[in-house]
């Protein structure tokens, strides 16, 4: 492999946006059959570098080589023609179209008269879907799929063409473990056919499992490339953020308070049934389960976005009806939703205004919004969460994915809720910030908040939770305390096996 020529080589790439130098002379190359990790903090410039490669952004300086030739990627079309497949960080799908049409978007198979060859399309798609082992078929409308499944549709695109290089920009951010296994198989297959693979992720365990080399960016600058085999999590983290992190499992315990939130026999028609649990002040309760287990729907019900069909919700021991998010907010419930672009942010609005949106009515100076108070809130969480933005005026849509997520978290932390529900809180967040957020969740609990963490990352659930609710197919299978939980019994619980069966 060492004497082979790189499929792709980028040299001294420079890219600036108004107020941001996103890439500052970055060089990077991928060998055929190599899985090359691209790492860096949120906003380090990873996605931007890949967008330059994919023809979406034009670089201000630098050169792209394919083989020995310098090439110009004038647009996505050209990049695609040159054999570069780009699986985007943000879902890039047409919701009204079918899975098959999305997978083959831009290159639908045709018959005479420009007609779509539906049979061939369905066959090809189903072949790919089978390989991906997903539970939906070629004709499903993409808008009807869960986010995780939509992500699988994105991934399926990598298998449609004869690629020279495939870029995966945080493909696993919304996948659960079983889908990840499928994805890694796909990557291994591609690798076997000498495709060069660029893999962006914030999840260390994945990086060490599947990549060959790691290139690290920091603030748009090239930090170096290392062989994965020669590195450790600590050394890579050191390169990324200039310090090491304590990633040990949470062991600290503090005194628990009263029950803040109790749910009794709650059902929401087909989404989940007969769910009961309680969350105390000072406690972090993790919710773990497979995609579609119904955790998000429970959160939405508690936040007034769905009407339960049966059961009770009790806040501080008192039964409540929550009819709307405004209700929920007034009762001290906050929800960090799982879909940051669709539900969490107004992308065209600036950072500060997004952050203060839920409490805008209370930040008053006379008849007007108190801009000073707004700035204070923004400054506080800007610092605390280390959000990389040129300033509060930046449109949220221009931030990197991880920094967008931080804005959402800041927005709900600033509400100082009694019950904080976070749904996939660290999706797309870099290791450094992730550990900050975990610390923060623990610290909030210590201050007496009741925290519900919905996560599909087992390490995360294990790390932050005092107790873990394991769900399967809309039902609570078992509730673990941090003493009796192990990775094995947790996996068993969420796969539908009851504790009796396990025992």
């Amino acid at each position, binding site marked *: 492999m060492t004497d082979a020529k790189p499929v792709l080589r980028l040299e001294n790439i420079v890219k600036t946006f108004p107020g941001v130098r996103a890439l500052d002379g970055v060089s990077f190359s991928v060998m055929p059959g190599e899985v090359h990790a691209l790492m860096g903090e949120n906003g380090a410039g990873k996605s931007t570098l890949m967008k330059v490669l*994919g023809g*979406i952004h034009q670089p201000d300086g630098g050169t792209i080589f394919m083989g020995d030739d310098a090439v110009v990627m004038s*647009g*996505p*079309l050209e*990049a*695609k*023609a040159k054999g570069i497949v*780009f699986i*985007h960080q943000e879902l*890039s*799908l*047409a*919701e*009204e*179209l*079918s899975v098959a*049409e*999305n997978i083959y*978007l*831009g*290159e*639908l198979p*045709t018959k005479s*008269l*420009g*007609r*779509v060859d*539906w049979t061939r399309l369905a066959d090809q798609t189903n072949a790919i879907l089978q390989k991906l082992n997903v539970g939906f078929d070629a*004709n499903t409308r993409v808008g009807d799929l869960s986010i995780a499944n939509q992500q699988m549709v994105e991934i399926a695109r990598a298998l449609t063409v004869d690629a020279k290089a495939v870029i995966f920009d945080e493909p696993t951010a919304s996948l659960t473990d079983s889908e990840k296994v499928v994805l890694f198989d796909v990557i291994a297959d591609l690798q076997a056919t000498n495709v060069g693979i660029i893999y962006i992720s914030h999840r260390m365990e994945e990086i060490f499992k599947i990549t060959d080399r790691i290139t690290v960016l920091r603030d748009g600058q090239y930090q170096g490339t290392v062989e994965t085999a020669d590195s450790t999590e600590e050394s890579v983290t050191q390169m990324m953020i200039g310090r090491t992190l304590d990633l040990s499992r949470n062991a600290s315990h503090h005194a628990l308070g009263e029950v803040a939130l109790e749910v009794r026999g709650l059902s*929401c*028609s087909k989404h989940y049934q007969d769910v009961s649990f309680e969350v105390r002040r000072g406690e972090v309760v993790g919710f773990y389960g497979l995609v579609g287990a119904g955790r998000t729907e429970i959160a*939405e019900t508690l936040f*007034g*976005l*769905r*009407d339960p069909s049966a059961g009770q919700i009790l806040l501080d021991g008192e039964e409540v009806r929550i009819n*709307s998010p405004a209700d929920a907010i007034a009762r001290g419930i906050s929800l960090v939703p799982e879909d940051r672009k669709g539900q969490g942010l107004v992308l065209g609005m600036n950072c500060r205004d997004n952050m203060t949106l839920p409490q805008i009515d209370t930040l008053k100076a006379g008849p007007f919004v108190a801009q000073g108070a707004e700035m204070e809130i923004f400054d506080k969480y800007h610092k605390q969460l280390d959000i990389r933005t040129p300033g509060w005026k930046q449109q949220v849509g221009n931030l990197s994915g991880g920094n967008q997520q931080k804005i959402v978290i800041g927005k709900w932390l600033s509400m100082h809720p009694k019950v904080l529900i976070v749904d996939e809180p660290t999706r797309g967040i870099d290791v450094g910030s992730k550990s900050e957020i975990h610390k923060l969740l623990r610290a909030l609990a210590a201050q007496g908040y009741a925290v519900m963490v919905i996560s599909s990352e087992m390490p995360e659930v294990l790390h932050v939770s005092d107790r873990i609710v394991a769900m399967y197919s809309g039902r609570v299978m078992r509730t673990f305390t941090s003493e009796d939980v192990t990775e094995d019994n947790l996996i068993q619980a969420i796969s539908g096996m009851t504790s009796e069966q396990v025992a």
Partner: protein
Amino acid sequence: MKPGTVSTALKSGAIWGFIILELIFFSVAGEFLSLSDKAFMDWDNMLLLLKQSAPIGIIAMGMTIVMVNGNIDLSVGATFAIAAIVLLDSMTWPIFAGLGDWVIPVAWLLALVVGTLLGALNGLIVWKTGVDAFIVTLGAMLGYRGIVFMFNGEQPTSHLNWTLVDFAEAEFLGLATASWFLLAATFVIWFVMAKTVHGRNAYAIGDNREAAVNAGIRVGPHMMINFAIIGFLAALSAVVFYSESGSVNPNDGQLYELWVITAVVLGGTKITGGAGNVIGTFGGVIAIQLLRKGLGHIGADTSTVNLVIGLILVAVLVLDRQLNMKGKEELKV
């Protein structure tokens, strides 16, 4: 269930139910209010309905693809008038003098070419400048109308060719010429949108333009083609209509854009793009024409007609919502 099949189209939208309601209402009300002894649902009257739907209906088919594509075209009324002028005026041009009645196909072709070019011009501007189609075509609605007036001042442009009139008034298998053109336009656009790559790409672009760009679809030329299609259909509508009537006022086609858009949206097309189909649009067109016809049938005066048409548009939406709400427990957003 393949996308674009007739069954999905029929299921979507309350428009068909609404058409039935209209038929029942006007039939019953007609018994009491109409001067005529003939029933509203008289077969000939229904055939007439189809024919009368043609001018707006043909354009609406084009509007469906443009709106699904995520754009809109407000200039269709003016394009309609320009094409009509070209059609009628070119028949009198000296260079065609030797052609006899063969001037008719030549004039048709000229009108269609001009319409297509005007549509394409809108598309080109949208593509190259990136200005929103709403503004581009709002401007063109004025600009093209200016061209209409420039042509012949305020005078109507007329050329009554009885051969042409006879052709336009002819019936084939019981359907008037205009009806055939409406059905043909509906079929062709349905075919394009449901069956062809171009049509499917139109949905993709309207649904998520960025995704389409990322997938390497050439969005600009694609949109331009759709604008050319609607320009062509606006011209076709003019060609069909003015072959029969033989004279165009410079104001003709005004407000067509609003009626056409109303028909398309009533038919279930999303104004933001990405969803819709011509079967629904066909229903929308029929519903509107039925409304006009029915109100005339029962002899409502102008203020009542305005009031009723307005309220009924709103009522259709309410009905549509009630029908579509059932069985869905969506997020309360």
